């Protein structure tokens, strides 16, 4: 691949090679991925053999590099751009290809039928947003289809009802938000999703849009251009409901709880306090912090397409280290606010045999217990 065009398009010239990107990259320590070095290559070499860099699939798109770059170079965008080259040439890991195909065909990466997307409601009536509502609840593919995450969606519905909100979902017309699609390099599919989802969302006429997943939240807020609609992650909304006194906790959770900041919520969108406010409002919760919290939270390795690919990196998953850090605080519950974090961290707990000590739960599952 000739480097010049992408270098100019991504404006890589400001890079001073300080190394803060690679230095903060959570996977750099265990794979061959060195984003600074790739940028340098793009700057000084006329050609880059993209196909030789399989480690490009190791990036989780946590965007720590983008957060910390002092010269506004946005290193992760180079990875996304190079992945685009790989996608176009068809050289992508099989499982990622399958996920993309599923999104294209059935609107979700699992490939399960579109008409089963609303099965998570378990028969309870959820208003169709197409009929008009104030709050559009965008459920997310993972929350809709994954049996482990469906309780989170149900807990949110219960909470919205308890606060008497006028909300609705897009039902089976909801398609993947495309956040991971863009990060896997499939720009064509991403643009199509933005157009279709965007049109559908605008037609609902809701003033607010709330999501289960920080990934959906991220792309709707920052990449879709939904002017006039307030995009929220559920932690922002639920924290607001609690502060306004619209939720009553009759029960509680008598446990030590520690909170893991998801990259797409914390690092990228600076939402740190609302999830903690919710946890501290639940009676009985004793909130303890891990050392690496907030801006220094350790990525669970679920983003950037990593839910569907192992990548080249066979070293221990970061989620394993993360749950050990959580266990070290003495917490009994590791609270999360993202479906991908929930799945990767729970997996790590089980494989390491820590399930007697530590339970991974979404904040909404804890709210559900207390409502």
């Amino acid at each position, binding site marked *: 691949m000739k480097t010049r065009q992408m270098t100019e398009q991504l404006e890589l010239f400001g890079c001073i090679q300080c190394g803060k990107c*690679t230095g903060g990259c959570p996977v750099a320590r265990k794979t061959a991925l060195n984003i600074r070095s790739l940028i340098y290559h793009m700057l000084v070499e006329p050609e880059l053999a993209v196909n030789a860099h399989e480690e490009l699939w190791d990036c989780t798109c946590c965007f720590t590099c983008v957060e910390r770059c002092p010269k506004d170079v946005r290193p992760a965008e180079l990875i996304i751009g190079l992945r685009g080259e790989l996608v176009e040439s068809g050289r992508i890991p099989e499982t990622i290809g399958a996920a993309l195909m599923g999104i294209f065909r059935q609107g979700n990466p699992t490939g399960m039928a579109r008409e089963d997307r609303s099965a998570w409601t378990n028969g309870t009536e959820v208003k169709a947003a197409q009929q008009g509502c104030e709050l559009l609840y965008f459920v997310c593919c993972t929350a809709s289809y994954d049996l482990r995450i469906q309780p989170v969606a149900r807990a949110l519905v219960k909470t919205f009802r308890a606060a008497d909100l006028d909300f609705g979902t897009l039902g089976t017309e909801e398609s993947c938000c495309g956040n991971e699609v863009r990060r896997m390099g499939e720009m064509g599919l991403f643009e199509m999703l933005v157009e279709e989802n965007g049109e559908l969302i605008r037609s609902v006429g809701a003033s607010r849009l709330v999501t289960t997943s920080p990934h959906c939240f991220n792309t709707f807020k920052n990449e879709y251009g939904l002017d006039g609609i307030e995009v929220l992650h559920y932690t922002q909304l639920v924290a607001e409901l609690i502060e306004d006194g619209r939720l009553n906790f009759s029960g509680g959770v008598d446990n030590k709880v520690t909170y893991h900041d998801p990259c797409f919520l914390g690092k990228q969108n600076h939402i740190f306090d609302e999830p903690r406010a919710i946890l501290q409002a639940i009676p009985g919760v004793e909130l303890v912090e891990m*050392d690496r919290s907030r*801006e220094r939270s350790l990525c669970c390795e679920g983003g950037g397409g990593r839910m569907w690919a192992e990548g080249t990196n066979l070293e221990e998953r970061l989620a394993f280290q993360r749950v050990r850090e959580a266990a070290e605080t003495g917490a009994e519950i590791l609270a999360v606010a993202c479906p991908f974090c929930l799945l990767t961290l729970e997996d790590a707990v089980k494989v390491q045999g820590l399930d007697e000590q530590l339970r991974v739960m979404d904040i909404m599952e804890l709210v559900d217990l207390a409502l």
Partner: protein
Amino acid sequence: MIPVTIDGQSIEVEEETTILEAAQQLGIHIPTLCHHPALEPYGACRLCTVEIFYDGRSRLVTACNYPIRWELEVQTASDKVMKGRRLLAELLLARCPNAPAVREIAASLGVTETRFEMSSEDELCYLCGLCVRICEELIGQSAISFVSRGVDRQVGTPFFEFSDACIACGACEFICPTGAIKLPDITDKEPRPMLSEFDMGIAKRGNIYIPFPQAVPKIPVIDRENCLHYTLGRCGTCEYFCEANAIDYDQEDEFIDLDVDAVVVATGYDLMDPRIKPEFGYGVYPEVMTGIEFERLSSASGPTMGKVSVNDKAPKDVVFIKCVGSRDPHTGVPYCSRFCCMYTAKHAHLVRDRIPDANITIFYMDVRAFGKGYEEFYDRVKHERVTYRRGEPSEIYRRGNRLVVLAEDTMLGRPVEVEADLVVLATAAVPRADVKEMAEKLEIELSPDGFFQEEHPKLRPVDTQVDGIFLAGCCQGPKDIPDTVAQAKAAASSTLRVLAQRERVIRGA
């Protein structure tokens, strides 16, 4: 004035002067254990007992509270007195056998053993009442008092519960000669230390203090926000002690109108709060400090006399991180702060001097050693086994009781983790907070970087847009001492031209 003779020496004193005061005027030492010049005399310990002779009789009285009303002869160390004092020392030793103050007094009287039964080896309180009296007389809170009677007499709070009246000032703890009384026994309020601003919070200061040794004028200033006299109408000890009678609590700021023909603006700079870069854990980890905090820590005339220690130990692994906040449009500091490379080299050199076997690493993006002798100094520091590693660290986290600095060593081309006991951040130099206000008042401009704008970047570096107003030093942009002095000389001599004119036009903004 009444004549009095103490140990054969004569003096005339005013009526009501105590024997102790008179002895002090003569330079005669009388031992005391419960006396303090700022408090009313108490007469509890009886050690200051002296023998007085008048009218053909002699009596033993306590010197601290005996007012001289007529001519007297005093013996401070007669046989009778010494016998009594030694007995007192034995009684005190029995009460507080291990209190240093008591042992000292006993030793000075030649008493090493006591015939009396010891109460408890750990007892430190000999009921001098200094704590009770200071709380009542100077602080005015009366949070503690003597309670119970006879052998059960002790210092305590009402019902032995935490006292609401206590303001956690620590005066009792301060004045107790043996360390018998501690704040946590009296209150659960957290005492708030008064931190020295000059020493960057590493050291404490009182409410009346001299800010730093080079202060001009070098006289003490009172912190009105916290001083007990201003806040509660109490104390007043400083005024009592000031021999020059220089303290006037009612003194107010004076506003002086001056007509001048020239102004040199030398208002300096500020340093950026590193919390704007949360990845470094400043404010979270006590082992992470800024360059200026390290300056005070390592200063030979500073609060630790130059001893570099972290968590009560000499740090074994020290990491310096440069460019914290500088050269980064996101923090509002796109420029280079200019002096950090050199002071970091200096700090590394200092650490090597104080801790010969420390491992010293400096993480850098560049090394700007531009001045006279600077490159040579940088070479020297490297030869002192200071390792310069290229790569701007991205994160610091804790591992056990140490810190880990995470960076990519760009020369090695891979991420590295360096363990550290101390991390020093070279933070960005920024304009002072009130620079906009100053600029408006003076009707001069600011450059895009926020510092005062020089009239021409090359040819008129110390002039402003207003003829007669000149700039010098960091208020015009970060720079180090040689450049600041050069600008100061330029600005000062520029004023001479202005002052020499009989008439002139002031070009204004």
